[in-house]
């Protein structure tokens, strides 16, 4: 039994994890590994908590609800959220991932934690999922292309995971590296893979930043970045890396895919900001995709995607026009 799952917003980013948590985490990993060895991974995973047993199918997750709701906007129908994805590894059309991502095998799956951490290690996805109760949080999701959705994501605060990894004080940024398997992915030429994204340490430790395994109460569909991704609700969607295979703690701002390709269009921070236009379109409004109507619902874009209060002073003193 692990520690009681706190409500994410109760945790200050400066809070230090008791050593017991870390011990428990490693203890759980060891016992789980032994069990898996003995029983064969599929059966064991099923026994241990009912997590996904098939590689592709989306299965129900046991979730606890939280206070993270979106009261002023209706939730996007699941079919829309799962058929309209920017996941260029599977093709550049937004319908491509739903068509092509079926080939991705999400079990077995491990995440390699490396860089400036006390104990670099490779962890099994089921272990990561079982580490904390999975919360259902409804977040606004704003794509840099000026459309948005409202999606219930299932996961727990990335900060919980990071604390258990014990990053060194020299770690200033976290880099997320996505899978790039040419056997199952299209990997269109012109874009450098693997996809890389990154967050400043305080952004990664912010309770809103969700280590995400599911949506709508089910495990993530492959095209949404199964089996593990992050969701950073106050930033444009591309900051939220999908199908993560490596998490690296680094001391310098890591290079990130879109920022490398077009630094004038995609800043490292990419906080949702209605007053900084994309060179090719205005960011003042967005098309809210949460109904089954052909007429667009156009709503004003909110600073920090409506999470300005939660973000607080994180960017105090920064010129957000320059650091867009």
């Amino acid at each position, binding site marked *: 039994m692990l520690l009681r799952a706190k409500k994410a917003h109760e945790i200050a980013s400066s809070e230090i994890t008791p050593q017991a948590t870390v011990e428990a985490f490693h203890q759980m990993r060891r016992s789980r590994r032994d069990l898996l060895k003995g029983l064969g991974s599929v059966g064991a995973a099923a026994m241990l908590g009912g997590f996904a047993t098939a590689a592709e199918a989306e299965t129900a997750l046991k979730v606890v609800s939280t206070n993270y709701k979106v009261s002023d906007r209706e939730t996007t129908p699941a*079919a*829309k*959220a799962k*058929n*309209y994805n920017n996941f*260029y590894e599977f093709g*550049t*059309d*937004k319908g491509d991932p739903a068509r092509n991502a079926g080939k991705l095998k999400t079990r077995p799956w491990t995440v390699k934690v490396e860089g400036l951490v006390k104990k670099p290690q490779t962890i099994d996805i089921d272990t990561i999922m079982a580490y904390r109760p999975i919360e259902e949080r409804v977040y606004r999701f704003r794509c840099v292309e000026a*459309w948005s959705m409202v999606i219930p994501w299932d996961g727990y605060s990335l900060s919980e995971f990071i604390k258990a990894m014990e990053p060194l004080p020299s770690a200033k940024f976290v880099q997320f590296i996505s899978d790039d398997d040419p056997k199952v992915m299209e990997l*269109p*030429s*012109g*874009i450098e893979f693997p996809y890389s994204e990154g967050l400043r340490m305080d952004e990664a430790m912010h309770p809103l930043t969700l280590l995400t395994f599911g949506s709508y109460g089910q495990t993530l569909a492959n095209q949404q970045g199964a089996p593990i991704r992050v969701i950073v609700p106050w930033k444009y969607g591309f900051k939220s890396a999908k199908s993560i295979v490596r998490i690296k703690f680094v001391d310098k701002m890591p290079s990130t895919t*879109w920022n490398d*390709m*077009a630094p004038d*269009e995609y800043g490292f921070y990419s906080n949702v900001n209605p007053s900084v*236009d994309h*060179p*090719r*379109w*205005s960011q*003042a*409004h967005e*098309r809210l*995709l949460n109904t*089954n*109507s*052909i*007429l*667009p*619902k*156009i709503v004003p874009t909110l600073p920090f995607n409506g999470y300005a209060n939660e973000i607080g002073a994180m960017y105090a003193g920064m010129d957000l026009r320059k650091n867009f």
Partner: protein
Amino acid sequence: MWVKVAVHVLCLLPFLYLLEKYHNGSLALEADPVNFLTHFTGDWALWMLLACLAITPVRRLNASLNWLVRLRRMVGLYAFFYATLHLLIYVLLFSGYDMSAAIEGARAGRLLDPLRQLMTIWPSMLDDLEKRKFIQVGLLAYLILLALAVTSPQRVLRWMGGKNWQRLHRLIYLAGAAAVIHFWWLVKSGVRTPWKDTAVLVVLLAARLAYWAVKRWRKPAVV
């Protein structure tokens, strides 16, 4: 005659497909119907334009294909038709124009509401035009197609005189190039989706250059 009917039907098929998609509700189930409509009409405008540009090189392959030229104007006008849909979708659905509010207002008897919406969105469309190269080049392509469509009737040709008319209608090469550039400038850097359309355009323009060069070489210029 039946060929013309067949070509009309073929050129209208994408539009009929849209109507059917609207009618059976699958358009509304598209994750982002506006995005779908924008890309669909843009693609077909470009493809019709390329089809129109293909007629002359194909015709030159063999004298027995000469009849194809009679289809050229028609296919060109369909390019204009899909480009017009594309532009209308940009203005009425994409630019921020609140179509729901406009319809609601008109239904409630406020007949000027659709116009008011247009006035509201006008500054941001001008802003788009001023700031964004892909909008400028797209509008250029559209204005050329508009000019060619307006001058397409036989009567206008006679009025303008063949030479002038031909000079004006050579702008279709520029429209083709502008349309392809519009496509390149709107996709994200690193995305190479427009390469197929670009390749087709380059082949069609190169065929004209080759034809012209061969003609010059075979029949030296009169001194």
